[in-house]
């Protein structure tokens, strides 16, 4: 008896480890959308282009250039480095190149990536790709977008894989992250609100994924829901993304009056703030995309943003003094 007790304990521990690994494996199986879930459909390329501009796909996926004016938004060869606390992501090639891009993807592959963050072959994509927002897009819009992407020029060139620190470099871990933070489904309109507000809510929270930059994130890199849209540091920690709730979008340095719907709409059209300033940095790239949207879509985004509940976000660090 004295000899078999440790042996029995060992067996129990071994079984528990196997069970834990099996549970981890089952819980982290990447979800996909089967081709059978996609009924016959004729895509609308014009709407696909609208989704492309609303989503700002080119801002991350276009081949980078030191001079942003020389970036061709139709050449989606990827390669841009995105440094963050977990390491560095390199934006993938999503041009229709059959070998290095998504030319070999089926429509179901594309929908699985956008809704579930799953790449062909059942591989988790990291949430640096904002499928947490794209999950709220309508199926027809995704199919239109996929058809539009297929019309763009193929760009050869494989992009290097992400360079992440342990344990974030274990891709299967993303499955646990999704269990915690990937929720909801396609956008459902609020019948109490206006059609314009609903269109704005859809664009902002789905394709345009505004909150992905304009919200603070927790230590696991997920948006802090109570401070959604309330601004925060950039992923590399160097700069700051503004609060875009009415608590943050103020005219002048200390003025009491928030931006009006008209202010927001015209800002999305030409990049000029109500103070006469022209925005720079990453938002200038966003303006490049939003300026391509219809006036109605910009007005809808403005209506939704102006009606956000005011929220206080994190406090920016004090400027360095020496």
């Amino acid at each position, binding site marked *: 008896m004295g000899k078999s007790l440790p042996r029995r304990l060992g067996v129990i521990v071994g079984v528990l480890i196997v069970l834990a690994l099996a549970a981890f494996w089952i819980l982290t199986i990447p979800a996909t959308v089967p081709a059978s879930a996609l009924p016959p459909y004729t895509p609308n390329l014009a709407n696909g282009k609208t989704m492309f501009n609303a989503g700002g796909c080119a801002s991350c996926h276009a081949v980078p250039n*030191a*001079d*942003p*004016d020389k970036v061709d938004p139709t050449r989606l060869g990827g390669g841009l480095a995105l440094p963050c606390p977990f390491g560095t992501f390199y934006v993938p090639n999503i041009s229709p190149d059959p070998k290095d891009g998504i030319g070999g993807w089926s429509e179901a592959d594309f929908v699985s990536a956008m809704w579930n963050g799953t790449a062909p072959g059942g591989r988790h994509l990291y949430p640096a790709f904002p499928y947490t927002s794209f999950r709220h897009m309508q199926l027809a819009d995704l199919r239109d977008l996929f058809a539009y992407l297929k019309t763009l020029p193929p760009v050869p060139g494989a992009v290097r894989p992400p360079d992440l620190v342990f344990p974030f470099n274990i891709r299967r871990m993303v499955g646990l992250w999704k269990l915690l933070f990937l929720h909801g489904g396609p956008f459902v309109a609020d019948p109490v609100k206006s059609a314009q507000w609903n269109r704005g809510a859809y664009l902002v929270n789905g394709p345009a994924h505004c909150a992905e930059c304009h919200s603070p994130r927790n230590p696991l890199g997920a948006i802090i829901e109570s401070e959604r849209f309330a*601004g925060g540091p950039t992923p590399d920690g*160097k*700069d*700051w*993304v*503004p*609060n875009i709730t009415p608590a*943050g979008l103020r005219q002048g340095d200390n003025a009491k009056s928030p931006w009006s719907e*008209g202010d927001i709409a*015209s800002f999305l059209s*030409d*990049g*000029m703030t*109500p*103070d*006469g*300033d*022209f*925005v*720079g*940095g990453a938002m*200038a*790239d966003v*303006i490049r995309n939003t300026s391509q949207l219809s006036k109605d879509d910009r007005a809808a985004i403005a209506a939704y943003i102006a009606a956000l509940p005011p929220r206080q*976000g994190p406090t*920016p*660090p004090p*400027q*360095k*003094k*020496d």
Partner: protein
Amino acid sequence: MIRTISAVASVAAIALGLSVAIAQQDVIKTRKDLMKANGDQAKIGADMIKGAKPFDLAAVHKMFAAFQNAAQKMPDLYPAGSQNESGSPVADKFSPTDKVWSDMADFKSRFAKFANDAKAADASVKDVDTLKAALGNIGKNDCGACHRIYRVEKKG
């Protein structure tokens, strides 16, 4: 004697360092004030375009003159070592990117273009429509295009 010389030398070095620091703060404040003035002027023009203010050609001339003035002075206001943040008393939500210093020739050439565009705009504006075209062009291709590369936001 040696002690005196070294004392004098260190006082001189401190004074020099201090005056350099003050000079850096001065250029940072000067360039911020010029940019702020540009924004204030652009707002007046934008208000005319939106119909919030009546069209006023004299004010339009004043705006484009302010742009040209700033464009001429700005290139000399980014000496080495004035990478902001060091100038804490005048640091605010915006800061120049490191590219200002690594691509100084391009950075300066953008002010030359800005001055030219402002001058051409001043000659072209006759009414609200021509103002809209001229200010829209400058906002996008001068202000916005340059801020996109050379300016970052440091706080919300």
